[in-house]
């Protein structure tokens, strides 16, 4: 079992660090965070250097890569740049559309990407439908050869800067409730759409929005995938999306740990570096242990995906663990820094706030247990111990 990164992976991560050093500096990140602005300069640089479209097939302007390398990229971005969360995971968006979209819809995505823009936002969550995704009420109906959509979405990240929304809707008259859901390719500048950002405690560089659809008119050809199979479209890459969130969280935790470990060598109290006190050493020890565990889980699950093995359970286990462990590591880092760790000028506070969403977005901790718990029971139903 070879745990070493390949030379190509090492060179890729070196290049990424250089992009972040030049275009994603902490100064620029702070400025974007304070103003609530999207870090476009960073995105432009990631696009120019091919990182933005990593994992997208070559014929759509990307550079194909395996899942393991994709996770290393997101982890390193999380480790080196406090704005990592702001960058869309284009590989997954494109895969959804390539798998289910029409030629025109795919071309729309490519056109957006070519101007270093955001191809799509996921129009899934509603005020009454978070974890309970089948409770969505945004509806569609047919009228005079057109399709009319009405409803209200919430926490739609990047709705303000996306050209299209992959919008999940329900046919209120569907006979079979399991076949009630259909996805539509909705242009975000269509009449009847209003977008209102929701103020958040973190993730200030991207807007998460309420999106109201008031008699929004689309065409039949704007259907994505098959009618009634909407869940298939949005669920296709859910597992990998969870892995990406875990990778970014792991990177954030590593950033916090590195800062804390360095500080513990420098900060002197009672005439000694605080790193010489056992309680600080214990924190650093357990922080590093958690980072190792996070990395191992992420890399192994990504490897499994690359081998074509199912990752439903492992993705849930990994996201759950990383959401929890990364939060603990960042919390411990703030503790090691003491009062100055609480300062708004330090990046740790932003990491702490930004990281908090990991246990909620992309599937809550509770849903991860629900997904994994049931699957594990099923797996071990006929288990025979030796």
């Amino acid at each position, binding site marked *: 079992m070879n745990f070493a990164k390949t030379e*190509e992976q090492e*060179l*890729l991560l070196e*290049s990424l660090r250089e992009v972040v050093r030049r275009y994603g500096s902490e100064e620029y990140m702070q400025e974007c965070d304070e103003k609530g602005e999207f870090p476009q300069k960073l995105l432009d640089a990631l696009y120019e250097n091919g990182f933005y479209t990593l994992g997208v097939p070559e014929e759509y302007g990307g550079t194909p890569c395996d899942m393991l390398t994709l996770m290393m990229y997101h982890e390193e971005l999380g480790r080196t740049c406090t704005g990592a969360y702001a960058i869309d995971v284009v590989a997954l968006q494109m895969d959804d559309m390539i798998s289910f979209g029409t030629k025109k819809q795919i071309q729309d995505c490519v056109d957006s990407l070519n101007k270093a823009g955001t191809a799509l936002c996921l129009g899934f969550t509603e005020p009454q439908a978070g974890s309970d995704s089948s409770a969505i009420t945004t509806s569609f109906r047919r009228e005079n050869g057109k399709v009319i959509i009405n409803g209200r979405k919430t926490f739609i990240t990047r709705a303000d800067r996306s050209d299209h929304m992959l919008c999940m809707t329900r046919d209120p008259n569907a006979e079979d409730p399991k076949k009630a859901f259909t996805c539509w390719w909705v242009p975000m500048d269509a009449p009847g759409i209003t977008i209102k950002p929701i103020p958040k405690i973190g993730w200030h560089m991207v807007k998460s929005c309420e999106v109201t659809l008031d008699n929004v008119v689309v065409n039949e050809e704007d259907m994505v995938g098959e009618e009634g199979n909407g869940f298939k479209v949005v669920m296709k890459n859910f597992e990998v999306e969870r892995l990406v969130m875990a990778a970014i969280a792991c990177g954030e935790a590593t950033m916090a740990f590195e800062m804390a470990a360095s500080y513990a060598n420098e900060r002197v109290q009672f005439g000694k570096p605080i790193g010489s006190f056992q309680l600080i050493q214990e924190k650093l020890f357990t922080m590093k242990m958690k980072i190792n565990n996070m990395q191992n889980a992420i890399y192994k699950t990504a490897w499994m995906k690359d081998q074509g093995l199912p990752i439903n359970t492992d993705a849930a286990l990994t996201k759950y663990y990383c959401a929890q462990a990364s939060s603990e590591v960042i919390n411990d880092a703030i503790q090691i820094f003491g009062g100055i760790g609480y300062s708004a000028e330090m990046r740790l506070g932003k990491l702490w706030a930004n990281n908090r969403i990991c246990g909620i977005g992309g599937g809550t901790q509770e849903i991860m247990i629900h997904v994994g718990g049931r699957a594990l029971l099923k797996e071990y139903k006929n288990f025979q111990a030796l």
Partner: protein
Amino acid sequence: MRIVVCYKNVPEELMIKVNADRTLDLSGADYKIGQYDLNAVEAAAGLAKEAGDSEIIALTVGADIVSNTKLQKAVLSRGTNRMIGVKDAALASPDVLTVAEIIKKAVEKIGGVDLVLFGEGSGDIYSQQTGTVTGALLGLPTINAVEKIELGEGTLRVSRSLEDGVEHLEVQLPAVISVTSDINIPRIPSMKDILGAGKKPCEIWSLDDLQADVASSTEIVSMLAPEAADRKKMIIEGDGDDEIEAFFQQIRKVL
């Protein structure tokens, strides 16, 4: 246009340890392409693109590090077409004349070279001599401190910033030029560049292949880190005029 761009693999300075006797311990250090050499590689790539129908050969001299495949890919991911490494155990810490002789012989063996490019100095020793000595040995027009290059007809127009002005020269090819770090900002290799690098040719030549020998003209007597100075820990408290004057006088003594 055929360009040979010379580079050196150097230890990552942040990973160099200093022993108690001030000698340097390089054993734990990773290696990288010297930062000033990256400017030369980028300059070569820019000229080749402008000239069209060009070839860039990255050339390095050293011991085992020359065969390091990651470093080979690192240079090949920056717009070069192929790489040649001259490798011998005796070339771990060669002096300037040795390296220049070897580069001269390599350039002659490659043949048809229009331009030999160097950075302003190696990333470790930074003697800033190798390009100039190589040019002298090759008997070619040799210019250093170049911060701008433009392509002419069989010539290059170069600019050099001097103490009292900027000098503009037109130099006949073939020539040997050392560039400064002001000439460009080296590219960041993309994933496509990195994946493509592994497919480009690499050749390792021995000293026998060049009929060269290691003839040192210098001997390194010692290489030590500077002596660590203890902090004076002098504290002047207060923000009155007298305190500021006392602070100023202390600074003045050491400047």
